[in-house]
């Protein structure tokens, strides 16, 4: 039982970790582009910020999967 709980925790960790790396890779180019546009025109701040956080949803998917693992499968 303890070993199962450990595997679930590792699974949850991998889900959050990989999702975070994926989101980071996505944000890399968008963030650079947003800063570039903002450097020329401050009006792009809002749009740039919005575009930059869009890949963040992938990290949230990872978090949701991790929470499901921890709370549903551990119960």
């Amino acid at each position, binding site marked *: 039982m303890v070993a199962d709980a450990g595997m679930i925790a590792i699974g949850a960790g991998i889900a959050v970790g990989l999702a975070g790396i994926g989101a980071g890779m996505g944000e890399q*180019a*968008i963030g*650079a*582009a947003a800063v570039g*546009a903002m*450097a*020329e*025109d401050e009006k792009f701040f809002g749009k740039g910020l919005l575009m930059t956080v869009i890949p963040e949803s992938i990290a949230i998917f990872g978090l949701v999967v991790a929470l499901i693992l921890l709370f549903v499968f551990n119960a």
Partner: protein
Amino acid sequence: MGAANDVKYAYIAARVRAMKGKLIPKEMYPKFLNMEIPEITRFIGESEYKKDVDELGKKYSGIDLVEHALNQNLALTYRKLIDVSQNEANFLITEYLRSWDIWNIKTIIRGKFSGASEDEILEDVVSAGQLRYRELTEIVKIGTVEGVIAAFAKTPHYPALEGYNGVLADIENSLDRMYYSNLIKVVSASGNKLFLKFLRTEIDLKNLKMLFRMKRADMEREDILKLLIPGGMELKDADLSRLAAMPLSEFVRAIEEYSYWKAISDVSGELTSLLNIETRLDKYGLAYAASISYYYPLSILPVLDYILSKKIEVDNLRIIVRGKETSLQEDIIKAHLVM
């Protein structure tokens, strides 16, 4: 284009897109035509050129002020592109902008050849390449063409200049050929196929303009071939040599098989003036740069598109202001504008 390349160009591509958004919209040009010179000057002084107009306001006035402000702004904008770009983009932009070194060398030598004053020469100098404005102002002070050529001895352009024998066209032509052959070499080595495609199209358009001019002047095939730049996209060496041998009317028909024909097809009947054809080819170049930069948004192409658009904006403003100053008719000024 791989993901790593996309990331590399994301910053500079987004930045130049934002910069392009600040260029004067083409709807403004017809309005300029209805304005008087002071109104246009005021508009320019309140636009993106404000800083340059304010800075140079103490030294120059009227049309000269506009001309110097436009040139300074162009040079600073291009220099900024070099400063804010990194790695491959920085290298390619620097190499491409060396064309302004060629422009400055030609301007100074032409100026000295025709006995223009230092101020007149400096009016047309745009220090957007690797030669700095201060160096160029020092060179402008030299009295003779030979002296100017000697002053460029340490630059990579010297091999094209050292053969000067009193004929300007020869060294100008070898400067151009050297610039393009060197650019093709470094761009090929960098492996950036998109830049190469853009560059080779630019060479084609340049060659076409040259062919039209030379055909109208009834020049011999050998003389024309000496002036053409090898390395074009559609107009390969064999095509150039074939086209150079044809008389004007046959030459115009022969261009129909190339894709550039669609740019000039409706004005090809009016060969009394080449103005329409040259403006159309410039427009084609601009539209082509814009369209391929949309196909490959995360590449060097948006930067090249911006470089071209900015140059054309400055040219257009200069044409309008100079045209108004010399009281040219509106339709003549309009025919010169690329928009």
